[in-house]
């Protein structure tokens, strides 16, 4: 029995970690090419979620149409936000970019609030997403299994993209030195748009799983997951892609472990412990688990 419970919690940790990893990867990829801390990352999920809601309202119910549509809109939202808000502040200080992203985030939340109201709106995803798989005596929700698999597939795909394509090469190079990349004849614009498209795609994937768990959209649904993704990104080393993955899974495991191990009367404080992790990491290993320590005097 105990081992069944452990197995269930392990899958739980993997799927939660996968969600954080997907989101943290999206944050990291944008940060690595343009040093922008994208607070609006989660709100792209909100946009995608409302798009799915609208599509279902218009009578389209087939999940194989609705879910890809949600991901597509999330990608388009990412690209649009880049054009409208982030392009004008490109090259400004990281502070400027971060505050711009915060502003964008507030705008999206409140536009959703005006047009959608503050009440959650039900978005039924597929029934089979909500069912459970039985492995021996263990019941494991399909969402968790799929989320783990999709996360791993997305990571493998991303590694392939970064390694074997010209765009990937350009993005890796841009993470090191943007001016030199431009001197090599690569359009900075294209690199940055690709980064946003990828981050939007990853956010869209994560969004599907977030929706499958919650079953509804509301204006602030993207905010809390992204706060956690920040913890994951800092844990792994901000801007490092492998770090984002490691940080995401580490956070997922830590969270589930705290949930299981903390006595019930202090379980409510779990998020305080999670965010305290940031403090601990910053004190003992400021560059994160896999990040590189910036040279002294480098503005990070």
């Amino acid at each position, binding site marked *: 029995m105990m081992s069944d419970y452990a197995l269930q919690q392990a899958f739980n940790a993997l799927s939660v970690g996968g969600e954080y990893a997907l989101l943290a990867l999206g944050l990291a990829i944008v940060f690595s090419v343009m040093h922008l801390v994208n607070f609006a990352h989660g709100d792209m999920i909100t946009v995608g979620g409302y798009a799915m809601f609208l599509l279902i309202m218009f009578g389209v119910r087939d999940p194989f149409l609705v879910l890809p549509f949600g991901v597509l809109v999330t990608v388009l939202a990412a690209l649009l936000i880049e054009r409208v808000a982030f392009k004008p502040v490109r090259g400004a200080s990281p502070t400027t970019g971060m505050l711009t992203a915060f502003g964008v985030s507030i705008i999206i939340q409140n536009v*959703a609030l005006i047009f959608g109201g503050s009440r959650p709106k039900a978005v039924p995803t597929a029934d089979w997403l909500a069912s459970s798989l039985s492995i021996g005596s263990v019941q494991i929700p399909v969402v968790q299994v799929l989320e783990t698999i999709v996360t791993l597939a997305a990571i493998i795909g991303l590694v392939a993209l970064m390694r074997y394509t010209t765009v990937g090469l350009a993005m890796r190079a841009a993470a090191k030195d943007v001016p030199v990349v431009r001197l090599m004849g690569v359009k900075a614009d294209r690199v940055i748009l690709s980064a946003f498209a990828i981050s939007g795609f990853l956010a869209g994937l994560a969004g599907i799983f977030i929706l499958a768990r919650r079953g509804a959209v509301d204006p602030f649904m993207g905010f809390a997951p992204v706060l956690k993704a920040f913890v994951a990104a800092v844990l792994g080393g901000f801007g490092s892609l492998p770090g984002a993955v490691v940080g995401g899974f580490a956070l997922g495991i830590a969270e589930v472990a705290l949930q299981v191990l903390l006595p019930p009367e202090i379980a409510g404080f779990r998020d305080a412990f999670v965010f305290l992790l940031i*403090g601990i990491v910053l004190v003992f290993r400021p560059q994160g688990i896999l990040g590189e320590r910036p040279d002294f005097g480098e503005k990070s």
Partner: protein
Amino acid sequence: MSNFLQSVRGALILGVAVGVIGVLALLFAEPFYQRIVFIFMVNLIAVIGLQVFMGNADITNYGHISFMGIAAYAVAILATPAAIKKTSLATAPFGLGTIEVALPIAILIALALTVLIAFLVGTMLVRQSGTPASIATLALLVIVHVVIMNWVDLTRGPRAIYGIPVKATLGMATICAILAIVAARLFRDSSWGLQLRAASENIAAASAMGVRIKRLRLVAWVVSAAICGVAGILFALFVGTISPKSFYFDLTFLTLAMLVVGGAYSVSGAVLGSIVVTFGFEIMRYLENGPQIVGLKLPTMFGLTGIFLGAIIVLCMILRPRGLVGDDEIDEIWRRRSKNRERSEISANASGAAQ
């Protein structure tokens, strides 16, 4: 010494402006508007507190409101009459549920506690610069919120603490705001402030010149927290009830918008931004509730204030990333302008004489 006097004079220009707002509200405004002006003063103090750290150390800070919350909760728990606590906080630990502390002592304890916590947090925080430091301050905001929400015995959790003695007046808030302005300006122009600002421009050069960056950041952080603590105490003692959501992202965004719109790098920017954003925010709040304007009934649109805040942050970052005021204080800008004018007059006269 003349520098010191210049700083005080510069601060007093702003102080007089704020004082005029306070006095006008006290003399002529109806209670509803007096309340708005009081909240403006509280927000202004928090924005100035924020400026002390953000403007000098150049680290975007999302955690300042947590110090407002800590101070407000501390004073509320200490100073609420024991009779009320018997029903609201009977299970409070450390015997806090039964004691009632005199208000001045409660205020001092609340401030001391805020400073102590700020110091402990600060020793960890100042080791980081830039983005990681900002995210750490964000983590602080979340942690303090989670603790207040979950330490139900001490804070009543998500429910409000009520019955806090309503002792703060608009006059007090105005005086505190003016004192905060003077303190922030003196800190900015002090050798500590100057060293910090130098370090935020070029950390390597400044530390080569012997600037002890971490220690100075810590000083700025603690001063900033203390000023925010004053704002929290005034808030609690004016409103009489506080709950955790008063000290979370909404107020963080509002005060950050005020600071960045005015300009984080000067006290003048903090004051100007607070005035401009409060004005816009109140207009939006009026529109949000669906008012009747010249016979036309507008729809209620909750979220309008949020869109306003977000839009003005984004527009400001795109058009004037260093804020309306920019890098210098208003009196410094004026002095430079009048000097330039004199110089151009002299050169005009000189060229006139040569002809």
